């Protein structure tokens, strides 16, 4: 009887269906080109090399941001400003890397501020911007979608003012390590992602913080009455999301060794929300799944890589992405999940009956 319950609850879980969807997409890739899965060692860069590595590597920014977004959505809100903060972080970092030279010069012809500033200031500013969002939500009582809209709209403007509307390029090699370096044969963004995911998982699951977030997401007033400082929880979650957007921004700008105030992080908020939703966290708040979000982010990047790898014509790319995502969402819908859960329950019951 217990086994029966387990299988049916597994089939009920959205995370299961996210994993199944990812498997299906990869299976299609494998069916078309088995060498999609080939991974080799690239001596010139000291890294593993293959499409699967690319998927995990290029999903880093969205995965990192969506860790924060998961908690925001578990609170029953959304953070629209994350994409703009990615641009802000890149702009600040490049400003420090190109401190005194505004016009274009050959890399190497300008003074670089202490590297510690390049790394810390963008993160601190992004965390503060996140805190600003949290303040509007917690203390101002403004709906998160409206509160974060402010920075979504003006964040890119801030990034452009910081860099005088220019796209700086840098050749400073320590900065290259973040997005293009390697550690333990893996691209650095993957390592950073692992650290972030593990840290967020430990912070939410090994402390009571995750339970606080879910509680506030379901019913803030009841949580407050039961002694949870709802305001503090909201502030911490938005601050964390801002900080994580900053980390993603450093990775993005290190990959291209320049800032790109208009394109960096463009539509990242949508991708992050999608990753969280595919991962099984409900938009109305409450229970959340870190692993689910991770899988959701991988699905999004797998689709993009699929498009590039198999040469879907540029005009059809958007429609193709939308089609796959629609299929994933339908697979996860309540009727489909219940249907399979019932079937699983029945099958176990029948086989159990025969054995007895």
């Amino acid at each position, binding site marked *: 009887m217990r086994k029966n319950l387990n299988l049916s609850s597994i089939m009920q879980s959205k995370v299961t269906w996210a994993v199944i969807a990812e498997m299906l997409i990869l299976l299609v890739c494998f069916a078309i*080109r088995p*060498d*999609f899965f080939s991974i080799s060692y*690239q*001596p*010139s*860069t000291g*890294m593993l*090399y*293959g*499409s699967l590595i*690319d998927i995990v590597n*290029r999903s880093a920014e969205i995965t990192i941001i969506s860790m924060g977004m998961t908690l925001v959505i578990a609170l029953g809100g959304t953070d629209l400003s994350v994409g703009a903060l990615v641009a802000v972080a890149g702009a600040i970092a490049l400003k420090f890397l190109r401190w005194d030279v505004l016009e*274009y010069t*050959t*890399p190497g012809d300008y003074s670089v501020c202490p590297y510690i500033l390049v790394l810390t200031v963008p993160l601190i500013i992004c965390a503060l911007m996140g805190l600003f969002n949290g303040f509007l939500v917690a203390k101002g009582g403004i709906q998160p979608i409206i509160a974060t809209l402010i920075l979504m709209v003006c964040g*890119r403007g801030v990034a*452009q003012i910081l860099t005088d*509307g*220019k*796209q700086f*390029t840098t050749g400073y090699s320590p900065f290259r390590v973040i997005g*293009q370096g390697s550690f333990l044969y893996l691209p650095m963004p993957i390592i950073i992602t692992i650290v972030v995911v593990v840290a967020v998982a430990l912070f939410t699951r090994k402390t009571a913080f995750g339970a606080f977030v879910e509680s506030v997401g379901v019913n803030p007033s009841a949580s407050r009455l039961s002694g949870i400082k709802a305001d503090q929880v909201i502030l911490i979650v938005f601050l964390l999301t801002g900080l994580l957007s900053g980390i993603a921004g450093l990775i*993005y700008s290190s*990959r*291209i*060794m*320049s800032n*790109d*105030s*208009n*394109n*960096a992080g*463009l539509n990242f908020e949508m991708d992050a929300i999608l990753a969280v939703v595919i991962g099984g966290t409900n938009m109305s708040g409450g229970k959340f799944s870190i692993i689910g979000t991770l899988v959701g982010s991988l699905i999004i990047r797998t689709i*993009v*890589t699929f*498009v*590039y*790898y*198999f*040469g879907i*014509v*540029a*005009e059809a*790319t958007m429609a193709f992405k939308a089609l796959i995502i629609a299929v994933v969402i339908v697979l996860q819908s309540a009727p489909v999940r219940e249907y399979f859960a019932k079937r699983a329950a029945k099958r176990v019951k029948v086989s159990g009956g025969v054995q007895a």
Partner: protein
Amino acid sequence: MKKVFLLVVALVMVFAVSAASAKDVVIAFSQIGQESDWRTANTDDLRSAIENHPGWKLVYDDGQQKQENQIKALRNFITQDVDYILFTGVVSTGWDEVLKEVNEAEIPLLLIDRLPDCADKIDYVAAFGGDFVEEGRRQVAWAGEYFKSIGKGDVDMNIVIMEGTTGASAQTGRTEGNLKALAEYPHFKLVGQQSGNFTRAEGQAVMESWLKSIDKIDVLIAQNDDMALGAIDAIKAAGKVPGKDIIIVGCDSVKAAFDAIVAGEMNCTVECTPLYGAFVVPTIEALERGERFDKTVVHPEEGVFDMDGGIDLGSVKSVKAADVIASRRY
């Protein structure tokens, strides 16, 4: 005291506005946004040319790559009743309505860089812009002539085309030119065609996937330099040597591309000049004098820059990048 102060401030502002509107020629400019070094140079050149012109006032709007922002800006310009509108559209379609409104308001329209699809249905004074089809042709022709010059003219080569933002006139024009020229070089085999959205990050990701899905790539045609620069990093990460193992032809001629060519990591960049100030200012001056224009198309002169120079492309001969890098402004 405070009230008096506010009154003074208000009066000063009213005078300032009326003084400005009484004398100044107001020129409004709806720009796409800051998508690349090229766009920045384009914006800076036009802005400084207009702002430094005595008696002219610039109203600048950055569309942040969104069509709806630009449509809003154009409608604002109409409401403000500006004297001239300079316009570059982020995509080529969907401008019919708002540009007709500009026509109805009888504000002279000057199209910069990109021609909207509806250009033949609306009135405009002049269009300033590179010949995208010719630029696309030059990209492929350079690669073809380069291989001839090193004695590999009859060796089969695999070529990939990295396109710009789908639907932008620079993308449609350059793709047309690319494909037209491909027909003239039968030894080129097109093995990949994908959009890199004119950005470095996407150029990098697309090249990364191509290097795994396509066995042999000999030539990369990137429809702007930023995508080519992104692709260079991806090629290095794959353990190949950009500029040698894979011949890279960019477009636009931004300074970062010159650096890459001088460093031997990129082979050629076809110029698409953003410096329109020198062409736009005389046109507006002429309009102010009462001269009439009707849909005049102005193609600025453009060059081709590569590692060694001297490749003959019919309409133009390539110039060695290292010789002119010092004089480049963007």
